């Protein structure tokens, strides 16, 4: 009846509290719940809803905390103090912001397509929340262990591109159209290296399920797939509109891009989706490349803590990049995807495929299994390969996307004073 949630502590507790008599739930230990027999479906519904409620609210709360952390950290990077008035260390600032946004008038421009305009925040938030379903937060703590988890994450994440396009087109604003066109062009381009970079991980794990990927990481895959992780991280920053790829909402150019016309609660929802998107991306990065819930000790009991630590590390990295780098131009961004990331992703894919074939299938004792020492050997091969191919392609890249004229430093002309008095 409940194939993937019965291992979950919360689900099991709620289910067994309400239903849990003999019925199908043999794993409740035969204890009786509150509801009479025949009402297990209601217990199942309540338990599932509880999990969903926790996940959705956890994600949105996480977005609020991320907004706070980003503002504080960026302020520190910029020699400022950041929000520090509401609550300890300004922790309640996101709540205050949210209250302000909720109480604002809900403006819809007269030239806008009203229905599409209103649907956009829902599309963007839904795509984000859907993508959280497959992330394993700790051992046995996930909504669904889909056997196509990685593909599902990418597929659902791409829905936000649709949201961007809908927002830009429905706003009836030329800046928004600029943002949407840039967004569609860029996001579709970045899908390609993004997916290819994950194929290496999938090959290594032999499965697309996120849980299997975590369990396959005898050493963190960041060592085995350094190139894959770099490409995935760059690609996902582009998907999330983070600098240096934030041309969708380039403030200095097109004001706010596709969400120029959004205000009030709609803006808050879109912003929440964007911020929680960073967290979801960090979660996927730590799951696929840093070993998810596994840690140096007590991975079972403290799995959630290890996971959160890794997630916070990646989230910090995203904030750091955002506060440091300028923005690329659209043609440079496209060149970066097609001329740099795509060849690197292909190199990574071919190298991983050859290695996996050699170690797991060619004369292997147990077909399909890769041991820890074999993973170390792969790491030893892949790291120099990553450095070498990045060095090679970044040279081409600079030649291709930089200005055609040779690199010259400006000279300083020394002109003596006409006549030195005194």
């Amino acid at each position: 009846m409940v194939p993937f949630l019965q291992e979950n502590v919360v689900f099991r507790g709620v289910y067994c509290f309400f239903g849990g008599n003999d019925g199908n739930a043999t794993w409740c230990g035969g204890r009786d719940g509150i509801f009479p027999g025949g009402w297990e479906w209601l217990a199942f519904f309540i338990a599932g809803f509880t999990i969903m409620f926790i996940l959705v609210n956890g994600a949105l709360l996480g977005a609020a905390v991320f907004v706070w952390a980003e503002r504080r950290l960026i302020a520190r990077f910029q020699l400022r103090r950041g929000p520090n008035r509401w609550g300890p260390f300004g922790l309640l600032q996101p709540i205050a912001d949210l209250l302000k946004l909720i109480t604002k008038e809900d403006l819809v421009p007269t030239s806008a397509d009203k229905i599409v305009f209103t649907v956009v925040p829902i599309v963007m938030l839904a795509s984000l929340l859907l993508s959280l379903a497959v992330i394993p937060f700790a051992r046995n703590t996930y909504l669904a262990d889909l056997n196509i988890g990685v593909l599902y994450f990418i597929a659902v994440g791409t829905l936000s591109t649709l949201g961007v396009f809908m927002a830009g087109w429905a706003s009836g604003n030329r800046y928004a159209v600029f943002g949407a066109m840039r967004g569609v062009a860029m996001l579709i381009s970045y899908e390609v290296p993004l997916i290819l970079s994950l194929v290496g991980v999938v090959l290594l794990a032999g499965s697309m399920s996120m849980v299997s990927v975590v369990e396959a990481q005898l050493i963190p895959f960041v060592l085995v797939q350094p190139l894959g992780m770099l490409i995935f991280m760059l690609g996902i920053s582009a998907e999330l509109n983070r600098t240096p790829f934030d041309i969708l909402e380039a403030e200095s150019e097109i004001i706010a891009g596709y969400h120029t016309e959004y205000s009030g609660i709609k803006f808050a929802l879109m912003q929440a989706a964007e911020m929680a998107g960073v967290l979801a991306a960090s979660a996927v990065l730590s799951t696929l490349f840093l070993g998810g819930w596994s840690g140096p000790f007590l991975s079972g009991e403290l799995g959630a803590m290890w996971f959160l630590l890794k997630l916070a590390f990646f989230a910090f990295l995203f904030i750091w990049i955002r506060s440091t780098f300028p923005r690329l131009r659209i043609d440079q961004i496209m060149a970066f995807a097609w001329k740099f990331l795509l060849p690197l992703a292909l190199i990574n894919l071919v190298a991983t495929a050859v290695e996996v074939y050699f170690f797991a299938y060619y004369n292997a004792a147990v077909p399909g299994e890769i041991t820890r020492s074999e993973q170390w050997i792969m790491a030893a091969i892949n790291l120099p390969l990553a450095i070498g191919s990045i060095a090679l392609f970044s040279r081409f890249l600079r030649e291709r996307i930089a200005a055609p004229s040779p690199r010259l430093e400006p000279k300083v002309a020394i002109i003596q004073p006409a006549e030195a008095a005194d």
Partner: protein
Amino acid sequence: MAIRAEPVVVNIGPQHPSTHGVMRLRVSFDGEIIVDVEPVFGYLHRGSEKLAEERNYVQALTLTDRLDYVASMTNNQAYCLAVERLLGVEVPERAQYLRVIAAELQRIASHMVAIGFFLQDLGALATPLMYCFRIRENILDMFEMLCGARITVSYMRPGGVYADAPEEFWPALDKFIANTPHLFDDLEKLIVENEIVLVRTKGTGVLKLESAIAGSISGPVLRGSGLPWDWRRADPYDIYQRVQFDIPVGQRGDNYDRFQVRLEEIKQSLRIVQQCREQIQPGLARAELPFILRPPAGAEAYGRVESPKGELAFYMVSDGSVAPYRCKVRSPSLINLTVLKELLLGSKLADMIVTLGSIDINMGEVDR
């Protein structure tokens, strides 16, 4: 079947994060590529030139603060030079040194704003801007010591400066001279040789030297195109002939060269301030002048300085009364904007914003 595509006309400004005030650009886009640009000015017009005719010579000085409000000192300087030439008075030597110190500090502050917003326009999320403002803040603190104001200073007066520098100014200046190179290094390490900055600025917004000269362009924009022309050297005023400094020039006239010229000029300004600090002698800070200034009727004068934006000049005509008969401002921002179309045609929207930032305009000065 060919797709019929018409250029999209977008009004960029007057409310836009990066038009540096209230400028409006009517831009026709073919996709992202600019096919036509038409700047529309006048949103900040306050009639400063006409207002000056209603005020006496000292009162009109306060109007000059509000022209280029990130470089008030050099505005004051140009106005005072013009009035002094009308009157034919000599400025005491100490006052000239104080003026040069203030003007060079103002040049650093103004270039820090220019560089900060230039990098902001490139998309760096305010971090370089804050690094620039850290240096500018120290300068504004010193201005506050000099005259009590930070932005609209009115520090220089016809015949000298408002008052001699207070005692606490000199230690602050020494500290500034000692510390600024370190703060400047921080900025350079942060972003100046960043690969993204290089690919975004090199080869974009190229201004050829011939068109720069033909368009009467001045300041860092002209020097970025390769001509070492600086009014501090070409027609020295105050005590600029007594100090050593270099004139940085670019080679190709692109955004990167203008950016680098400004960075280098800041270092040269620091050199000038340091030399002035060493050379300055005690003396009068203001010439003895009557309370109400009455230049002889029919006198004409042209006071010209190298402001951070370029050649800033005041053309004054007196009719013998207490107020100028005519006060014409030659504002570098307005004249530097005349090459905008040439710089922008064929470039992309993102480059347009960066190029506009690299010209470093100030709408208070463009519209007057």
